[in-house]
């Protein structure tokens, strides 16, 4: 965090104070976590194990984290004080690279090349993991429309994912509908539900909206769990066919790789569509809604309409990915669609940067791939997701890669606006 060079001018006293503070914090955490971290009882065998070693972990961990947090805040304050007047819109390094047309297209081509070659370079198992990550990219991009761009905190996003998955599962079960027919139906059904959910919650304030959407999400899951006649209850629906390729018979490996390419296509489509939406009349209206609802309405924007479009267009992607999910796992049950799933997708959007497409992509890759490859970490996955939500809000609310606004050049009186897409 702080290099030696930066340390020298800092007063020794401040460091002492910070150390003392961290020491106190660490003592507090030792006390705080004592019963739950140290004592473990076995009520059946009636034994108590005292795990004293955990005290050391807690003490050291909280000491170091509190020091790092303090250092970060000090640095942030100084940076803020240094640039008060001057610095306007500061684009990140990523954006600086991407803005240069000379870098942009070769880089995109390189990435696409790697993505296309991926299943041939690595095992099917790896491709399978990557497919999951790609699915979360699309989910993140969809939720990003609602949360990041339009500023409507939707905690029940997983419901649309469930609707997509179950619409394929059920349509296939009862009407033998194939994957390709179910794909648009799943997306459109989810979008329809997005509008249905959107209607009643339109008038609600931000935090109430969050709770109501959470409620909707849980209601959908509980209905799937309990309405046995409709959804086969907790045991779920199995034997859902994988997508076909002009009636070609495929081995499991081939099917996996096919799925991977399908997802690459879908990710590209999602990026294209979401990017265009963001930089349209509608996208600007969403941003205005996020910034100030009252001013937005006073400027002649029908907020009912744009809220509903945001819900519908966000839900659409979840529905599509729901169908893909059902086809990929060939099995769906309500346990896949808990609130935690919504929380993971939210964490992707928050970590990456609300309103930023590249941010969401990075967020999804980090949060989905990291626990897969660092197996030791996977146990701590949800713990880390929770911590990420808190830490991002405190330290970097704009996310890892903040969205940058599009800029325009005007030369002289009558000029075409030179467009630079920021994503």
């Amino acid at each position, binding site marked *: 965090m702080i290099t030696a060079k930066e340390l020298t001018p800092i007063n020794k006293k401040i460091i002492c104070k910070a150390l003392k503070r961290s020491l106190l914090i660490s003592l*507090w955490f030792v*006390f*705080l*976590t004592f*019963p*739950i*971290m140290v*004592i*473990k*009882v076995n*009520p*059946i065998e*009636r*034994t*108590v194990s005292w795990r004293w070693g*955990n005290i050391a972990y807690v003490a050291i961990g909280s000491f170091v984290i509190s020091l790092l947090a303090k250092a970060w805040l000090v640095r942030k304050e100084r940076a803020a004080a240094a640039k008060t007047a001057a610095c306007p819109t500061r684009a990140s390094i990523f954006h600086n690279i991407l803005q240069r047309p000379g870098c942009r297209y070769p880089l995109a081509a390189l990435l696409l090349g790697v993505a296309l070659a991926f299943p041939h370079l690595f095992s099917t198992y790896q491709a399978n993991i990557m497919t999951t990550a790609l699915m979360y990219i699309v989910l993140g991009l969809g939720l990003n429309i609602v949360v990041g761009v339009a*500023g409507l*905190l939707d*905690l029940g996003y997983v419901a649309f994912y469930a609707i997509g998955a179950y619409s394929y599962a059920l349509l296939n079960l009862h009407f033998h509908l194939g994957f390709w027919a179910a794909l648009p139906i799943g997306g459109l059904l989810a979008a329809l539900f997005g509008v249905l959910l959107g209607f*009643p*919650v339109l*008038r*609600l*304030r*931000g*935090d*109430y909206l*969050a*709770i*109501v959407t*959470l*409620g*909707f999400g*849980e*209601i959908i899951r*509980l*209905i799937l769990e*309990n309405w046995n006649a409709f959804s086969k209850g907790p045991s779920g629906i199995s034997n859902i066919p994988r997508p076909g390729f002009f009636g070609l018979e495929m081995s499991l490996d081939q099917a996996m790789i096919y799925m991977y390419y399908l997802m690459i296509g879908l990710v590209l489509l999602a990026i294209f569509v979401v990017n265009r939406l963001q930089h349209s009349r509608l996208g600007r209206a969403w941003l205005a809604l996020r910034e100030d609802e*009252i001013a937005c309405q006073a400027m002649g924007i029908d907020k009912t309409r744009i809220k509903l479009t945001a819900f519908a267009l966000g839900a659409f992607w979840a529905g599509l990915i729901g169908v893909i999910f059902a086809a990929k796992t060939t099995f769906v049950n309500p346990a896949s669609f808990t*609130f*935690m799933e919504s*929380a993971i997708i*939210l*964490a992707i959007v*928050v970590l990456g940067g609300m309103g930023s497409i590249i941010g969401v992509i990075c967020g999804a890759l980090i949060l989905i791939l990291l626990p897969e490859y660092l197996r030791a970490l996977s*146990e*701590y996955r*949800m*713990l880390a*997701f*929770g*911590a*990420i*939500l*808190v*830490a991002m*809000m*405190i330290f970097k*609310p704009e996310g890892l890669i903040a969205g940058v606004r599009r800029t325009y050049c005007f030369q002289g009186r009558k000029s075409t606006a030179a467009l630079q897409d920021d994503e």
Partner: protein
Amino acid sequence: MDYFIELFLSGLTRGSIYALIALGYTMVYGIIGLINFAHGEIYMIGAFTSFIVATTLSIYGFPLAAIVVVAGVAAAIWSSAYGYTVEQIAYKPLRHAPRLAPLISAIGMSILLQNYVLLAQTSDFLPFPKLIPEFAFMEPVAHVIGSSDLVILITTAMIMLALTLLIKFTRIGKAMRATAQDRTMALLVGINVDRVISATFILGSALAAIGGLLIASHIGQINFAIGFIAGIKAFTAAVLGGIGSIPGAVLGSLVLGLTESFATGYVSSDYEDVFAFSLLVLILIFKPSGLLGKADTKKV
């Protein structure tokens, strides 16, 4: 008729537990306008702490009375400590941030605390020691009301009374009411608003911990995930009564407890949770100010 009375009393018991948790939501909301999403986890931590302490003491052979007192006090202390810490870490730095930031941070805290208990303890359901004995004098009415129901009702009533007195007459209670009405004004007349906010979190957490102890002992088992659903239900109760209003939280909780009890008793228990969620959604949409709350006018 007996069945009706039984359902009625069990609804009251349920409602009083919800009330203990709902008060924390409503007090925090009244003062800083934040839905403390992590409050359900504070309740869960209260239940877990009392479980750990009670089981340890009973293994070492302490008498029941001592176990009850120590477990109750420990639960209240540690839950308050967690409540205070959560406020300091996740909400205090965000007091001037956009409205959604503290809510996202609260959701993060909730997930964090749940998984912390999961990792440090276990994901299994644990049998909670029976802290409330079957009283002999309850024998004649045992078919409609259990001893633990009685204890829960009496304890809750006493706590409510104490809380009312505290808020009406003590210094900190007055400071809380002042801060709830107008934070800037409270600051100007010399109230340490930060301290009032902390006190609110501590008080709310202690109440939730007592709720955790009582319900865990009543139901007889606990698990790291009990906070989520209990939190949502208590929040429903708080909103039903009018969030920000203390009598509203109690009223809302009793109404929710009774409706749930009758609905599961006479209709079906499959949709118990769906029922609570639907109620929540309906109130928020049609009467967001609740039974006793005030409608807030927007300032432009």
